[in-house]
């Protein structure tokens, strides 16, 4: 055998013997070092690195996996030098040994961490596209009826019954209708939409097709926030792939789908502001009615639904409405996708049925506090969500219980603060954020958020008075009652719950002459 032949033989042998390693390509996996591992092992002949979606167990990232005799083996928090251990299958743990993952009941995120995000072949081989295949052969009324039976409520934060919103758009006759995916996941502490777009982009397309069929739309947009460059790029690539495969059609007519990038405005997550932005204007909130389902983009009937909502619709069409309706509680059907963050040991994505208490979630999945930290408060539902102290962790995670408590589940963000957190500084941050991001349409939010920020700056700086705290409470009530959208209407909640539960910290900042007698 000549030299070239030997080399080729050697290479072929190597390829047969090559070890395939799976490494997530998710933004957070890369931010934790996945790209460094991929680069370090790129030129090793018998190592093949496949980039996948993420399991969402971010405390384990960068996480390396390989196929073992009984399923995947995992090497959490891997470093380049770990390669010899991984090659020898030494020290890998199996999935059941990770309680964070084993105790979840995943549906939308069931396949996350296994497949390549942009492989349509893998998506379909793993059970994807079946929801659309079923919906494509159903009359639109039947799709709406299925959603009604399922009890699905919108996952973006407003929790409006999905079937109802879609049915309004279906019943409104027009020469043009639109489907818009709200991918402006602005609530700090949330990332499930980003994970879907980066990890299973075909799922979002599939959900949007089901919606377009149900309401009679032939044009769709994914409104993706500026802060998600990888998600936008992945969605664009996935749309191109679906088009290449000839699958972007409804009843043999083309469905036009585009990605539109935002430019850093939080309020654009509100549906009317989102549509103003999509039209190219300022992201201003509009008075409803008319609702977008009647008169939305360019005045035409438009369904604006959240990315996770579309992702869940796919599961419902695939598994049937009864599957969904049997999960969760009476008023909160299905699974809740929680995104844990802050000072806990195990930050990451958790998909479980509605109804578990906050305490259970923090303990079973959060894994307790980060080293050296003690619990102080937890915020649920993003920057407009309420703060809960330790004494209130028995509250079950359902729409109704949160509503009764004057709180919101929002988009499922859970952020834990430790005893080092300065609640006055945090409260001032909330109002700085609200003022920065107010669209300015209504006075309570535009002026109220600035005045509230000023009051909190004064208290933080040590020159506030007891009357300032009273004024803050009064201003908060005005904003809650009179703001046009949830931005101004919900913004007082984190501030007022901080004062309610940690009032001493605020009062300690007042100069002695400003302290109240009580």
């Amino acid at each position, binding site marked *: 055998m000549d030299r070239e032949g030997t080399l080729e033989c050697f290479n072929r042998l190597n390829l047969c013997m090559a070890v395939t390693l799976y490494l997530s390509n998710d933004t*957070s996996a890369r*931010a934790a070092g996945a790209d460094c591992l991929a680069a370090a092992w790129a030129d090793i002949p018998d190592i093949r690195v496949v980039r996948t979606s993420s399991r969402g167990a971010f405390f384990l990232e960068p996480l390396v996996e390989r196929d073992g005799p009984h399923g995947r083996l995992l090497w959490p928090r891997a470093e380049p030098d770990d390669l010899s251990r991984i090659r020898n299958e030494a020290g890998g743990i199996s999935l059941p040994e990770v309680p964070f993952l084993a105790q979840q009941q995943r549906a939308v995120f069931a396949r996350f961490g296994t497949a390549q995000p942009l492989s349509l072949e893998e998506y379909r081989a793993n059970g994807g596209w079946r929801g659309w295949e079923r919906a494509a052969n159903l009359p639109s009324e039947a799709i709406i009826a299925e959603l009604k039976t399922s009890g699905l409520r919108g996952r973006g934060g407003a929790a409006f019954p999905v079937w109802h919103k879609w049915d309004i758009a279906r019943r409104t006759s027009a020469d043009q209708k639109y489907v818009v995916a709200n991918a402006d996941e602005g609530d*700090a502490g949330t990332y499930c939409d980003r994970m879907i777009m980066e990890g299973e982009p075909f799922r979002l397309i599939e959900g949007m097709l089901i919606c377009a069929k149900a309401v009679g739309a032939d044009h769709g947009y994914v409104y993706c926030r500026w802060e998600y460059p990888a998600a936008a790029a992945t969605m664009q690539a996935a749309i191109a792939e679906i088009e290449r495969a000839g699958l972007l059609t409804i009843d043999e007519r083309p469905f036009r789908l585009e990605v539109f990038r935002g430019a850093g405005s939080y309020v654009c997550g509100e549906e009317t502001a989102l549509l103003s932005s999509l039209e*190219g204007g300022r992201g201003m909130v509009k008075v409803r009615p008319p609702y977008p389902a009647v008169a939305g983009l360019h005045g035409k009937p438009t369904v604006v639904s959240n990315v996770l909502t579309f992702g869940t619709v796919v599961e419902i069409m695939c598994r049937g409405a009864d599957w969904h309706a049997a999960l969760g509680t009476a008023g909160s059907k299905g699974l809740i996708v929680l995104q844990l963050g*802050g000072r806990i040991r195990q930050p990451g994505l958790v998909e479980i049925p509605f109804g578990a208490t906050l305490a259970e979630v923090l303990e079973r999945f959060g894994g307790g506090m980060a080293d050296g930290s003690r619990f102080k408060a937890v915020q649920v539902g993003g920057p407009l969500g309420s703060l809960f102290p330790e004494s209130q962790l028995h509250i079950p995670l359902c729409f109704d219980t949160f509503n009764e408590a004057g709180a919101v589940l929002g988009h499922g963000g859970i*952020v834990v603060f430790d005893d080092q957190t300065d609640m006055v500084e945090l409260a001032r941050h909330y109002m700085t954020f609200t003022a*920065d991001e107010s669209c300015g349409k209504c006075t309570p939010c535009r002026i109220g958020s600035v005045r509230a920020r000023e009051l909190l700056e004064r208290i933080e700086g040590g020159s506030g008075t007891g009357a300032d705290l009273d004024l803050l409470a009064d201003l908060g009530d005005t904003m809650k009652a009179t703001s046009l959208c949830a931005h101004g209407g919900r913004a007082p909640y984190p501030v007022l719950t901080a004062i309610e539960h940690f009032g001493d910290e605020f009062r300690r900042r007042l100069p002695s002459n400003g302290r109240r007698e009580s």
Partner: protein
Amino acid sequence: MATSETALLDRVLEPHRPRPGEQANILRTLLAVQQALGHVPPNAIGPVADALKVPEAHVAGVLSYYPDLHTASRGRQIVRVCLGEACIANRSMHLLADLQRVLGIGLGETTKDGQTTLERVYCLGNCGVGPTVMVDETIYGRASVSDVEKLLKPNGS
């Protein structure tokens, strides 16, 4: 604007001119201008308005609304510290204060040599591995001041 910039602007605006029956999209156009020029200089407002056949006030209104449309040139390197709540819980406010001290600038400012601009961002969805810092287009998790210092490019590069 320099002649070369004017020519570039013309090329950028071409595909955004509304065809008959089509509505202009100001935001999408301004993002394209920023992509090409690095920012949207105020004297581009006129040409953009002309190309899109909309009043200058509408273009100026959109330009002033969005936090990520910039009217002035910024540093050659942009460092953004996440001030989302999950990152704040993991001390990103301290990280921001430390970076202000290291760079000798305030939030939203650029170092005197025009090298680095320091900004804040409200959540990059990287909450599972915070605190998060974005340097130009790359997102870094579990970031410390020394990590970020290593990423700062020396002047002139």
